[in-house]
C-alpha cells in the first residue's frame, strides 16, 4: 500500500471552546483530486486550515506525504504542501509587487535562480511578463488568483490545498482558473484537496468527494455519484437535489471560455 498524500485520522478541530469539526477521517491518494463539499459553516475550510497549520487547536492525527504534522508551522512542511485562498482580493499584500510576492518563498527557503523561476512560473500560470512588476491593485480578480496559485507553486509542493479557489470570481473567469488548475495538476502531478460548495466544480475537477455537514463527514462518494445521484446519506441527496441534480450532465458549463493560453 502506497503512502497517502494526505491522511486524517479522528481529527477534532476547535476554535477556543467551540468544537467545529468532529471525528474527521479520510485519505487522499497521491495524485488524486479530492473535494470537501458542504454548505457554509459545515467546517470544510476549517479542515483545510488545520492541515495547513493555520488552525492549531486540533486533536487526532494529520499526516501529509507520510509525515505526521505538528501543530505549529514548519519549513519542511511548507515545501510539500501549499494553499490557495478563497478571496484573491485579500490574499495578496497590497504594497508588494507580483515579483516580490513570488520571490518571497524562494528567499525564505534560500533557493537561487529566483528571477528565472519567477518568469517561468508566470508563464506556467498564464500571466504575461508585463504583469511582473505590477501591484495587486493593477490586476483583475482572475489575474490575482493566478498570482496566488503561482505563489503556492513556487516551492514546487506536491500537495495543494484549495479553499474555494473560484468562488470569489465571475463565472467566465472561474472556468479559466479551473482549467488552469486542471492543467497544472496534470503537468506537475499534483495532489489536490479542494473545498467547494459548487458541485459542478467537483464533477469537473475531482475524483472523489467527502460531504460534510455540521462538522462531520457524512459520506465519502466517488465523482460518479454526481452523474447518477448514487448518494447513500440523506443529507448528501438533499445537497445534490438542492444544486439542481446531475450537474455533471452538462460538463460544458465549466468548459467554455477556455482562454487558457497554454
Amino acid at each position, binding site marked *: 500500500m502506497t503512502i497517502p498524500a494526505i491522511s486524517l485520522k479522528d481529527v477534532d478541530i476547535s476554535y477556543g471552546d467551540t468544537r467545529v469539526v468532529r471525528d474527521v477521517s479520510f485519505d487522499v491518494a497521491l495524485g488524486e483530486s479530492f473535494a470537501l463539499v458542504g454548505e457554509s459553516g459545515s467546517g470544510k475550510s476549517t479542515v483545510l486550515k488545520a492541515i495547513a497549520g493555520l488552525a492549531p487547536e486540533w486533536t487526532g492525527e494529520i499526516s501529509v506525504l507520510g509525515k505526521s504534522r505538528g501543530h505549529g508551522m514548519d*519549513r519542511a512542511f*511548507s515545501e510539500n504542501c501549499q494553499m490557495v485562498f478563497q478571496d484573491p482580493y485579500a490574499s495578496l499584500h*497590497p504594497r508588494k509587487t507580483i515579483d516580490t510576492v513570488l520571490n*518571497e518563498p524562494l528567499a525564505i527557503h534560500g533557493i537561487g535562480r529566483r528571477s528565472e523561476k519567477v518568469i517561468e512560473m508566470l508563464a506556467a500560470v498564464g500571466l504575461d511578463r508585463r504583469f511582473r512588476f505590477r501591484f495587486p491593485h493593477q490586476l483583475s480578480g482572475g489575474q490575482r488568483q493566478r498570482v496566488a496559485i503561482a*505563489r503556492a507553486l513556487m*516551492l514546487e509542493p506536491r500537495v495543494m490545498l484549495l479553499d474555494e479557489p473560484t468562488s470569489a470570481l465571475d463565472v467566465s473567469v472561474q472556468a479559466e482558473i479551473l482549467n488552469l488548475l486542471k492543467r497544472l495538476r496534470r503537468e506537475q502531478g499534483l495532489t489536490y484537496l479542494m473545498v467547494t460548495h459548487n458541485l459542478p466544480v467537483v464533477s469537473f475537477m475531482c475524483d472523489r468527494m467527502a460531504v460534510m455537514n455540521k462538522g462531520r463527514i457524512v459520506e465519502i462518494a466517488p465523482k460518479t455519484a454526481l452523474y447518477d445521484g448514487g448518494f447513500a446519506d440523506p443529507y448528501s441527496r438533499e445537497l445534490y437535489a438542492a444544486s439542481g441534480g446531475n450537474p455533471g450532465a452538462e460538463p460544458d458549463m465549466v468548459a467554455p471560455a477556455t482562454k487558457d493560453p497554454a
Partner: protein
Amino acid sequence: MSPRDWLLDDSPATLTQANLGRAWRMTTALLRNPLAVAGILIVLLLLATALFAPWIAPESPVGQNLRTRLLPPSAEHWMGTDELGRDIFSRVVYGSRITLMIVALVAVISAPLGLIIGAVAGYFGGWVDRVLMGVTDIFLSLPKLILALAFVAALGPGIENAIIAIAITAWPAYARIARAETLTFRNSEYIQAVRLVGGSHARIIFRHVLPLCTSSMIVRVTLDMAGIILTAAGLGFLGLGAQPPLPEWGAMISRGRTFILDQWWVATMPGFAIILVSLGFCFLGDGLRDVLDPKQGSEK
C-alpha cells in the same frame, strides 16, 4: 518615451520603475492639494532657514548690545530687539535649527519605538499584547507635559533631556495606532500565506506588517509635529527646555512675557514662528493622509 510615461507605465520592467511610479503618483496627488502644497512650502522654508541660518540672519543670535534694547520692529530690526538688545529676527532664524532638531529627533526616537511595540503587540496578541499595552496605557494615562516635566526634573534641564522626555511621552500614541492597524490584518490571507511558505514571525512583522502601518504612522507623526513643537516650547517656556542664551522659541516667549504689555513684539514674534511651523506640519499631515491612506491604492 517621456520620463512621465516611463513613470506611469502600467507594466513596469523593473522593481525600481514600479516603486518610482508609485512614488510619482503619490507626489502628483499630493501636489494637487493646495493646503498640502502650502504645508510643503512652509516645511521647506523651515528647512532652508535652518540650513542657511548664518547667511539669512543679519546679526548674531547671542550678541548683546544694551544700547539697542527693546527696540520696536523697524527696517533695521525686522522683528525688533529683546531686553539684551539682540535682534529677534536673527534669534528666530537660528531658533529654527533647534526646533527642527527637536522635531526630527523626537520623530526618529518615538515613531519607530511605538511602531514596533504596537506591531508586536497586535501581531502576537495574547499575553504579549496585554503586557505591552498595559505599559502603553500607563504612559498614556499621564498628561504629556507633566510626564515630560517629571523626566526633565529627574534628568536635569537642557535641550537634549527635553527631547528625550518628549520622545518618551510621544510613543504610546503610535503604539496604539500601530496595534489597531495590525489587528485589522494580522489574520488576513496574505499574512497567512507568508506563514504557510515558512516565513518567520520577525520576517512577517518587519517585511509585511510594518510597511502597512508606516503610512498612517507618517501621517500621525506629521500631525503630531505641531504638538511636539508646542511641548518643546512649553518646556522652554517653563525654563526646563533649552537654556539661555540658546534662541529656542518657547524660551524666547518666556523671556518676553515680562514685557508683554509694553514691548509686545518680544513675545509675539517667536510665537508667530511657532504657529506658522505648526500649521505647516498640520497642512502637510492632512495632505499626506489623503495620499497615503492604505485604501487609496486599491480604489484607483
